[in-house]
Each structure stands twice: as structure tokens, then as C-alpha cells.
């Protein structure tokens, strides 16, 4: 028998460290495991038998529960049955289709998994791997949804003395935490994905650009990289193959814009994270002007699963050109918030009601913002839209990095629109005027009116600003800020102009 406690940022923020400390003061040792992504149940303590099966489980554990847990640990088997596992039978988890997150929260994060698949791939023709990526239909999970294989092929086909794989772990969108959970819960999955990407494209150096707001992920990655080097997973002749690959990590410094790939690469070179004009795209001239494959954490961590089940089987998952699984993240005012990995295609309704179980406040859901701070606010009528790239585009929204933020009926959409401008003002890199000035003007225009009483002419000004920002911004920071603003105004006009003033 042994005790194990979940350990990731969710668990720690919910108090796992004090619980762990209290259990240890009883003279009972326990190990740490990753999180399953049932965030509202954290911290979770499990009692495992010799076969690593969960015998008992305690959720939302507080320090005052520790004597009870210790009694069950030391006590008779009957007491164990009273505290049967909740997580393994919970529909939130059992209905999921976990391919990227298959090991997270199940196996200890720093336990080296089997690398049979990797060994096998390292003996294949790189072109065959890229062909597999094409068959899989994988599209970038960082936000833009661009077909991954095109970038792989471009990097592979561009002659250069040095090529790079860069993992974008800047995860700045509010309502998203899948990158963090993967890095904390199964860092070897990411490392494996990066090695495969390096081998297929001919890149020998990898970088992880990690946001500074994720110290726990840094802890786990530091350890995982060290272990990977000592296991010959990284360095010279990976797993005794002819291929050598290194990974270094750089921590960001609190700039949302550094999630944009050209800004990220500037920052990785140790400079200001200013946006660069594309073309050239990073796949042709990226880091130090060399061909660079920039991918989001989840894109890279999807790669092992693709070859595990086979690219054809992967392409069968999902709907149309939205292939494979997506780790959706549901957050905000929701009872059951957390990570839900499913093939593309569930509706917003399914996620917020079947999985999320409605609002935490108990009030009706009024809107869901999807795809981060540059994403649209949806009206209730849109909640039956399936989560595919295509269906979302049809309603002027995007899946982005897969985050759904739930708001109840106390939300003030005017305040949200104002915030969208404000966030753009704070995070703008300052390179172009529409974004730098437009965001400030937009915020001021909305702010001068108290809630529910915006002058109709102001909305014309705001719409003008949106048009300029959308059309004339150099990057999507300024270019997409109009999306949350316009969706708020168009779908919730009552929050801007009260009936008396219209």
C-alpha cells in the first residue's frame, strides 16, 4: 500500500503542499503524481495497492482530513472501501478520449516511459514521418490551426547548416492551461514530440520558450530534461541512433505578445519581443534566420499519439478537416472546471453543461468566451455550435487554444469589451499605430460612459476603430482585438445602450 498526492499548479493552489506536509508529519510517506485535470476536486490523495490500482481516494483534501486518511492507510480494508475512487468512474473523465493526456495524472510525471515508438521512428525515413503528419491532418493547436505538415516539409526542404525546433510554451490566453498541465503532468511526451519533429525536419537543436508565470512547469521540465539527458534520450546519438538532438529552455518575462511566433523568436535571441513582418515565415528564416519549426506544446505532444495509433486512425478522429483530439479547457464560472480531451466536434453546450455542470454561482450561463482574450463572446443561440475549426469560423469565432470561459448572467459585456481594448493596450508591442493607439482610444471611448448607457455615436467610433485595427494591424494582437469587442456589442447590445436612451 502506498499513498500518492496530486501535484501540479492546480493541486498546489488548492492546498496540496500543506496536506502533503501534514501526512508526512504522521510518519507516512507519499509520492507525488500529476493532475488528471479534474481541477475542482483537487487536491486528490489516493491509496494504491501493489498493482498500482486505486483502492481508496480522497478529494478536496484539507489538512483536517489527514488523520482520517492516515487511519484508512493504516486501518482495516473495510474502511478503504468507503472511500472508493471518484475520479476513475467520473463521467468527466470516463467520457474523454485521451491521446495527448493518456499518461498525465496516471503515471508519475518524471517516470521515464517506454521509448519503443521513438526508437522505431528514428530508424524510418524522415520523409515518411512527414507524410504521416500530412495523413494525420494535425493542425497547430496554438491558435491559428495551420496544417502542421506544411511547416515540417518547409523546414525539411529548406537547405541550411542549422535548423531549429522551437516549442511555444508561452500559453498566455486566459482560460487555457493545457500546455501547463502537459508540461507538469507528462513532460516526456513533449520531449518525445520535439525529438520526432527534429528528426523529421533535420533540426538538431530544440528550445522550449516557457512563460515565467509557470514556475511549477519549469520545475518539472528542468527535472525531465536532466533525466532525458542521462537516459540518452537527448544529446549525442539519441537512443543510440545516428541522430543527435539537444533541448534548452528559456523563461519569458511576462509579455503576452511573446506568444506570437516572430516575437517569441526575437525574445529567444535575447532581444525585445517585437513583432517581425512575415514573410519570411519562421519555417524558412526563423531563429537566427535559420529554418525553424515553431509549434505549440500540444501540437508537439500530439505527435507521439499520432504514430502510436497510426496517422490514418488519427485522421478518423474528429470531423472533416478538424482531425484528431483537442484538449479543451473549461474554466471561469463553472462548477466542474478542468481539462477535457475529446475528438473535435462536441458542441459548446455539451462541454459547459455535460462536463462543466453549469455555473459555480448557480445562476444561468449568459455567455462563453472561446479562444482566449482575442476570442469571441458567444450568445446562447450559438452554444449548439460544434467545436470544429470550420463550424466556429462560420459564426465568426475560433477555437484558438481550446479554452472556454463561462460567464453567468451578472456579466457586463461592456466591461468585457473595454477590457479587451485594455488588454491590447497593456500587451501591445507598440510597433504599429492601429494597435498601440487604437486600443487606448477604444478603452477610453467605452470608459467615459457608465454601464448600460453608451452614446450611440460612441459605438460608431468604436466600430471605426475596430475596422482600422482589424485591417491595418501588423499582427493578430491588434488585428483580432476587434473580435471580442464586436461580438460583445453585436450579441449583447442591451449592455451598451439601455432602452431609455435608444
Amino acid at each position, binding site marked *: 500500500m502506498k499513498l500518492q498526492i496530486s501535484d501540479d499548479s492546480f493541486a498546489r493552489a488548492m492546498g496540496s503542499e*500543506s496536506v502533503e506536509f501534514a501526512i508526512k508529519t504522521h510518519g507516512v510517506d507519499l509520492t507525488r503524481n500529476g493532475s488528471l485535470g479534474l481541477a475542482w476536486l483537487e487536491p486528490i490523495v489516493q491509496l494504491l495497492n501493489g498493482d498500482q490500482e486505486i483502492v481508496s481516494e480522497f478529494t478536496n483534501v484539507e489538512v483536517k482530513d489527514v488523520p482520517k486518511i492516515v487511519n484508512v492507510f493504516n486501518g482495516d480494508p473495510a474502511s478503504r472501501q468507503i472511500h472508493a475512487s471518484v475520479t476513475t468512474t467520473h463521467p468527466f473523465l470516463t467520457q474523454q478520449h485521451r491521446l495527448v493526456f493518456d499518461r498525465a495524472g496516471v503515471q508519475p510525471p518524471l517516470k521515464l516511459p517506454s521509448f519503443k515508438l521513438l526508437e522505431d521512428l528514428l530508424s524510418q525515413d524522415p520523409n515518411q514521418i512527414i507524410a504521416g503528419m500530412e495523413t494525420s491532418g494535425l493542425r497547430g493547436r496554438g491558435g491559428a490551426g495551420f496544417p502542421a505538415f506544411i511547416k515540417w516539409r518547409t523546414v525539411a526542404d529548406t537547405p541550411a547548416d542549422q535548423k531549429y525546433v522551437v516549442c511555444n510554451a508561452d500559453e498566455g490566453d486566459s482560460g*487555457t492551461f493545457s500546455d501547463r498541465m502537459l508540461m507538469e503532468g507528462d513532460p516526456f511526451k513533449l520531449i518525445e514530440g520535439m525529438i520526432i519533429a527534429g528528426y523529421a525536419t533535420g533540426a538538431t537543436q530544440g528550445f522550449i520558450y516557457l512563460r515565467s508565470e509557470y514556475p511549477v512547469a519549469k520545475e518539472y521540465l528542468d527535472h525531465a530534461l536532466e533525466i532525458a539527458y542521462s537516459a540518452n534520450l537527448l544529446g549525442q546519438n539519441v537512443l543510440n541512433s545516428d541522430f543527435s538532438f539537444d533541448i534548452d529552455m*528559456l523563461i519569458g518575462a511576462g509579455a503576452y505578445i511573446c506568444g506570437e511566433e516572430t516575437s517569441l523568436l526575437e525574445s529567444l535571441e*535575447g532581444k525585445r519581443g*517585437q513583432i517581425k513582418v512575415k514573410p519570411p515565415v519562421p519555417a524558412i528564416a526563423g531563429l537566427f534566420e535559420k529554418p525553424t519549426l515553431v509549434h505549440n506544446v500540444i501540437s508537439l505532444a500530439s505527435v507521439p499519439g499520432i504514430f502510436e495509433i497510426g496517422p490514418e486512425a488519427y485522421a478518423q478522429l474528429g470531423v472533416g478537416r478538424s482531425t484528431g483530439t483537442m484538449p479543451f479547457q473549461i474554466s471561469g464560472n463553472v462548477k466542474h472546471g478542468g481539462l477535457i480531451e475529446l475528438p473535435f466536434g462536441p458542441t459548446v453546450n455539451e462541454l459547459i453543461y455535460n462536463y462543466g455542470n453549469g455555473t459555480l454561482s448557480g445562476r444561468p450561463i449568459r455567455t462563453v468566451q472561446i479562444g482566449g*482574450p482575442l476570442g469571441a463572446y458567444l450568445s446562447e443561440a450559438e452554444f449548439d455550435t460544434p467545436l470544429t475549426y470550420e463550424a466556429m469560423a462560420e459564426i465568426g469565432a475560433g477555437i484558438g487554444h481550446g479554452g472556454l470561459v463561462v460567464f453567468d448572467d451578472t456579466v457586463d459585456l461592456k466591461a468585457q469589451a473595454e477590457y479587451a481594448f485594455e488588454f491590447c493596450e497593456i500587451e501591445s508591442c507598440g510597433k504599429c499605430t492601429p494597435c498601440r493607439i487604437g486600443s487606448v482610444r477604444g478603452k477610453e471611448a467605452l470608459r467615459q460612459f457608465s454601464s448600460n448607457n453608451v452614446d450611440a455615436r460612441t459605438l460608431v467610433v468604436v466600430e471605426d476603430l475596430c475596422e482600422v485595427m482589424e485591417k491595418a494591424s501588423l499582427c493578430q494582437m491588434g488585428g483580432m482585438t476587434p473580435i471580442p469587442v464586436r461580438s460583445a456589442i453585436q450579441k449583447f447590445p442591451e449592455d451598451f445602450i439601455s432602452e431609455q436612451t435608444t
Partner: protein
Amino acid sequence: MSKKVRQTNTGSSPIPSELHSNLRGFVDRVGGLMHALNWLKGEYGYIDSSWIPTIAETFNISQAEVRGVISFYHDFKLEPPATHTIKICQAEACQSLGARKLTKDIEAKFGTNLGSRTSNNQVELEAIYCLGLCAVGPSVQVDDRLIARATPDSISLSTE
């Protein structure tokens, strides 16, 4: 995996030769200047203006370039931090769980505003945009401690 103790060295500003030898190791690393500034931030909690000439010299770039990099990133500050920093998430998922009101309550509790510090330099309130805890917000970070489902009462400066 122990908690990092902050600001181990505040008060004892390094002399240029010491600084130079500490930073030299970062020069040949990709992103060296970012590594170096992050290291200084971790070590001293901030980057003193008086260090900039040495940093510039070590990396063989202009002082203006160093300043340019420092000013671009929210994390790099030219002022020493207060004894405690409370970062309150201001982003959407936390807003939906009352982050705006929570911010006001924390401001009242500690007697200072977001973006400011108390006159005795004990507490500084800072805005942060997402800690990745959005499913269990509103989220707050007190020094190195993450706090989910934060309430004014759950925010305290003691560690345990």
C-alpha cells in the same frame, strides 16, 4: 523541488567585477541577455540601473539596447520589490468569478492599490494576466505561493 526563497541578496548590491563574472556564463548561450536578466531578477528581485553599464559591457552591446530589453518586459523592474508581492489575476476567467471585486477587497485589506505598494514597503499589489489556474479561480499569487478560489480572507502573508 523546494520553494525558492526570494530576494536572497537584496541590500548587497554586487560590485561590477562580481556582476561581470556572474553574467559571463550567459553570453554564449542562445537568449543570453534574457537568461542574464532573469537570473538577476531571481537573485535580487530587480535590475538596478547602476548595473546596466556592466551588463552592456559583458554582452558587448549598447546600454540603450539593455534598457530597451528591460523596458519591454513586464517582469523586469528597475525598482527593488516590496517585502511581499501579491499578484492578482485580472484576466477573463478570473473576472467571471469576481476578480474585479476581489481586487477591490484586497486593496482595502492591505491599504494600497493595484500597481502600488504600502508606504512601509511591506506589500505590493500587482496585476497578472492568467496563472493557468482558470478552472479554479479567482487566482492570486502571494510571493511564490499560488492560491486558487481566492477570497480576501485566504490572502495572508504568512507562509503556512
